[in-house]
């Protein structure tokens, strides 16, 4: 069964009506993977036996007609801990690491009846925008196999875009869900910071990281966010407030909705004018549907990239100190002393990009540079957050392109770290501000998908989904399917 043809609700209905069983559904996942993953390379680890056993159990117990996720398959990014299933963060450092507990999101998906089918490729420790920084394999974009799927959650995006699984989880520290969603024609949500527990997520930038779903449709996305959200005692930064039903009012339309258009996000001189054009067309549609379009300014946007790279790298340099070759993870063979365990294990276990970030972070936190770097970046972050707060005094959501280009060539930017960093210019301010943002498909440029992000107020994912749903219902981007062309 090709998942490109069905929503989660369709699959649920068919399970309830016994058109197929959960086991048959699960078998088709592995058939899909067998058929396309040699080309795409989305998965790092499959747990077929366990998944089939869980599906059998779901069939025996009977599919709960009131629980739409019951018995449905899901893929998990490989920086999210899965008990008993290898979790590598796509690093040599964790190549043989098997977690002894599930991340809260994995526990919650299981409680909701979903079944994990395997672990998905990514940039090492989620650092990168193309999945080329994986120490384990290359992942290709199903729309054009010579292009990257985006990153860092490139495997999560490629697996859903290829129709291997109907849904996957990714993580987004500076755009790592939205950018790959945009590159592969998917719906990808970076929830409000604190909405989803980070317990069991291998930490990168702790004050920025959020887990979120990749799906084909907006409502599917809201359904999965329902399942993974909520307060968690094991994550002190998880939000203590209420979790609403994100599908509630999703079909209410956009009449009277005030949509802000941040002028700094529309680079009219960009190389790919079709991106800006597609978003402008979407705004025209919103206007026709009764929304008000208002130009707004986020004046500190251009400081997003420098502030983000200092903050994320500083937090990473601290978080990644735990990889010391002692308790778990890679240990160098080449050791004579305790110091060697640390230095050799880290130097051999981490890839080049991870080392760059650790170096930048260590530098930014070191005495003599702390004020000019880390403190200054934290102040810039305040100004960026205030930009959003001010804009949201006047509008309900912001709409902007997700990226400045469509999916680029494999090998195209990997030797130019700075160019790779600059590509995050439209996504990082959202993480610095902690606000939620959803990327949805809004057209094509030379047969490659274009993404548009809808940014909301803190903890107002509902309005984002409502706006996204209205647009999706009024357009037919979903009808176009990936071609699997290109590549060698």
């Amino acid at each position: 069964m090709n998942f490109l043809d069905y929503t989660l609700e369709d699959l649920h209905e068919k399970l309830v009506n016994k058109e197929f069983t959960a086991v048959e559904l699960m078998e088709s996942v592995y058939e899909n993977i067998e058929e396309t993953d040699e080309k795409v390379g989305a998965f790092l680890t499959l747990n077929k036996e366990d998944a089939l056993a869980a599906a059998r159990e779901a069939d025996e117990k009977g599919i709960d007609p009131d629980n739409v996720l019951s018995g449905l398959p899901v893929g998990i990014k490989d920086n999210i801990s899965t008990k008993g299933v290898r979790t590598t963060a796509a690093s040599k450092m964790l190549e043989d690491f098997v977690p002894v507990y599930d991340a809260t999101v994995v526990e919650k998906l299981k409680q909701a009846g979903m079944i994990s089918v395997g672990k998905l490729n990514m940039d090492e420790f989620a650092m990168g925008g193309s999945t080329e920084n994986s120490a384990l394999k290359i992942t290709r974009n199903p729309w054009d196999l010579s292009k990257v799927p985006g990153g860092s959650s490139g495997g999560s995006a490629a697996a859903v875009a290829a129709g291997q699984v109907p849904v996957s989880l990714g993580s987004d520290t500076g755009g790592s869900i939205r950018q790959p969603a945009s590159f592969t024609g998917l719906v990808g949500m970076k929830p409000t910071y604190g909405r989803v527990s980070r317990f069991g997520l291998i930490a990168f930038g702790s004050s920025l990281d959020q887990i979120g779903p990749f799906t084909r449709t907006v409502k599917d996305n809201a359904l999965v966010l329902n399942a993974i959200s909520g307060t968690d005692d094991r994550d002190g930064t998880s939000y203590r407030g209420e979790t609403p039903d994100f599908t509630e009012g999703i079909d209410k339309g956009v009449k009277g909705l005030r949509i802000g258009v941040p002028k700094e996000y529309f680079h009219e001189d960009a190389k790919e004018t079709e991106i800006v054009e597609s978003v402008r067309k979407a705004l025209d549609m919103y206007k026709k549907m009764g929304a008000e379009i208002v130009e707004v300014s986020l004046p500190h946007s251009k400081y997003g990239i420098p502030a983000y790279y200092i903050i994320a790298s500083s937090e990473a340099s601290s978080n990644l100190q735990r990889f010391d070759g002692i308790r778990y993870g890679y240990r160098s063979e080449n050791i004579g002393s305790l110091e060697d365990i640390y230095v050799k294990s880290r130097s051999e276990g981490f890839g080049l990009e991870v080392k760059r970030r650790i170096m930048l972070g260590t530098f930014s936190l070191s005495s003599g540079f702390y004020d000019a770097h880390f403190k200054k970046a934290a102040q810039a972050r305040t100004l960026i957050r205030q930009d959003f707060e001010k804009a949201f005094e006047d509008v309900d959501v912001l709409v902007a392109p997700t990226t400045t280009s469509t999916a680029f060539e494999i090998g195209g930017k990997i030797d130019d770290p700075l160019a790779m960093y600059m590509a995050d210019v439209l996504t990082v301010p959202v993480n610095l501000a902690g606000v939620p943002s959803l990327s949805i498909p809004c057209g094509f440029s030379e047969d490659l998908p274009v993404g548009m992000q809808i940014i909301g107020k803190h903890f107002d994912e509902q309005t984002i989904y409502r706006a996204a749903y209205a647009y999706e219902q009024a357009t037919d981007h979903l009808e176009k399917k990936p071609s699997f062309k290109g590549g060698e």
Partner: protein
Amino acid sequence: MAINEETVKQVAKLAKLEIEEESIHAFTKEIDQIVDMVEQLEELDTEGVEGTYHGLPQKNVWREDKVQKGTDREELFKNVKTRKDGYIEVPAMFDNGGSEA
């Protein structure tokens, strides 16, 4: 150039990383470009602006002080490379295994 090879070596030492001698030149250049980019922040006026260090303004999250079951000790040893007598085994910490410190 804000960053030279000496700085890179010093920072690598702090980060417990070793940069190979043959790649130090290229690596220094890259880090220097990145530092140059992030130092765009210098032009930003942040006089009197409080820094934001957390993802959400939530302070002092308490939990009830009650005993909860932790992870099984044996489970936690599953990813340990070398163990001896119930401990994680590492090479001698001091030269000759002595205790001159």
